[in-house]
């Protein structure tokens, strides 16, 4: 923990941006969405692009950083970015913070763009999800990624008596938050019954338990706390970050009801010197409804097995006991292939006090990324000036 402890408060998010999101038609390229978000993030930061000396990006290609730096006209001296699924960008934040705190770079750009919805309309859904040379899961045709998460949901229901209704309430809450967010892709009111009786994706999950498929891009500018003082927007300081991954394929997950978020969360909280009770607002990677239940347990907001009761009956909805996914999340706000950056743009907005569904008095916001099939888990804690 010693190296990690040194990160607290040394680095801050000074600029955020999002492209248009939603159903943008066939002509908007992924990299154009990334570009649009980057322009907004740099303007928000009050920085010219030449101040970026470290780049972490993904645009869906095998050499994303080369494509993105070329497109943006950047000449990074530090080019990072392991692909660990949708959590990648929270991981990038952690690694970029290390690079900045160590003095290797001064300012990092983390950026993403994906025309996922357009791609879906062109290509249709593929039933795959595995890219190993030889897959031990492939022959059984999991409807990736829904089946993987469905297996976890089924096991959680079996072990803890979590009910179908409780799981549905995660989607209901996300839609209630989305109703407060003009940019949310889906605002139509949703009931428990709607969720449960919708088309089955992979039992016990229906299509309403699943995140959206949208187009969209986002970008974030990170720099030293020292430099952040001279920039126009209130810094959102990185108080803690931690990551962990234990498996890729769902059959290799040691326990389907406990994710590596137990480690990533503990590491982030230890670095920040904070506990779950100190967190004012929570952004969780809700690729599927079951995620919110698992992560609330694994991050310590409730005990293992009690996540169902925690989210039920508006527990995480507006007016509930913990504000979770205040933009509407991946289920109702946006989910362009990978959602990780959008967790952080919303966490930063909440810390700044400028979110569409602003929670009063936010000083600490948590963003938790998930990648693969409950595989990569990355947690970041952001804080206002008052937390330093």
């Amino acid at each position, binding site marked *: 923990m010693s190296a990690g402890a040194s990160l607290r408060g040394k680095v801050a998010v000074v600029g955020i941006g999002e492209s248009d999101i939603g159903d943008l038609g066939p002509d908007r390229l992924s990299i154009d969405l990334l570009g649009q978000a980057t322009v907004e993030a740099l303007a928000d930061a009050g920085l010219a692009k030449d101040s970026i000396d470290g780049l972490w990006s993904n645009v869906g290609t095998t050499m994303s950083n080369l494509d993105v730096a070329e497109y943006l006209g950047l000449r990074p001296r530090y080019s990072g970015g392991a692909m660990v699924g949708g959590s990648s960008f929270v991981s990038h934040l952690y690694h970029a913070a290390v690079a900045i705190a160590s003095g290797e770079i001064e300012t990092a750009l983390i950026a993403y763009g994906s025309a996922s919805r357009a791609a879906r309309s062109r290509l249709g859904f593929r039933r795959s999800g595995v890219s190993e040379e*030889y897959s*031990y*899961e492939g*022959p*059984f*045709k*999991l*409807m990736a990624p*829904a*089946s993987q998460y*469905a*297996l*976890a949901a*089924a*096991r959680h229901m*079996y072990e803890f008596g979590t009910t179908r209704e409780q799981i549905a309430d995660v989607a209901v809450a996300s839609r209630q938050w989305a109703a407060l967010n003009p940019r949310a892709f889906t605002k139509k009111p949703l009931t428990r019954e709607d969720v449960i009786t919708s088309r*089955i*994706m*992979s*039992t*016990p*999950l229906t299509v309403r338990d699943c995140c959206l498929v949208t187009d969209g891009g986002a970008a974030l500018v990170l720099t030293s706390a020292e430099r952040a003082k001279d920039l126009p927007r209130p810094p959102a300081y990185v108080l803690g970050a931690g990551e962990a991954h234990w498996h890729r*394929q*769902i*059959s290799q997950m040691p326990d*389907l009801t406990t994710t590596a978020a137990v480690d990533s969360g503990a590491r982030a909280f230890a670095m920040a010197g904070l506990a779950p009770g100190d967190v004012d607002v929570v952004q969780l990677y809700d690729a599927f409804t079951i995620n919110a239940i698992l992560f609330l347990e694994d991050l310590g907001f409730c005990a293992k097995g009690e996540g169902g009761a925690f989210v039920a009956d508006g527990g995480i909805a507006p007016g509930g006991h913990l504000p979770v996914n205040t933009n509407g999340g991946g289920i109702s706000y946006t989910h362009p292939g990978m959602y990780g950056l959008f967790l952080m743009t919303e966490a930063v907005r909440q810390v700044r006090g400028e979110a569409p569904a602003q929670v009063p008095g936010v000083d600490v916001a948590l963003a938790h990324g998930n990648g693969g099939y409950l595989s990569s888990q990355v947690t970041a804690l952001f804080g206002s000036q008052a937390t330093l």
Partner: protein
Amino acid sequence: MTGEPTDAPAWDLTPTATYVEGLRRGLLRFLRCDACARAFFYPRVLCPNCGSAALHWEESRGGGVVYSVTEVFPKDAEPYNICLVDVQEGFRMATTVLGATPAIGTPVRFDAESSVGDEPRPVFAIEERAS
């Protein structure tokens, strides 16, 4: 090369091929670590528990219990299930249980006859209770 011990078991550097070859013959093979005695699946060149490369092949007796299950309903084909099965020797694997979709906790058994073929895949069936 001289001085190589000739009686040492060979380090299998093509474990996937060995596994598939067994499956073609209706055998559910898995590796067990000589150092920590842990069984593991899928086959690799080292033990994912302790890192030892001293491993040996075993054949499963084929019994197992459903750890989790999901069912999908393709538009253009019959529904089918995907199960994670805890096999009796101490490893877990993805499979399909033929016939009725089992509940979690159901005893199942490796179905060798249904697993072989041009593209062999290890499937299970619900355990018939011999009473």
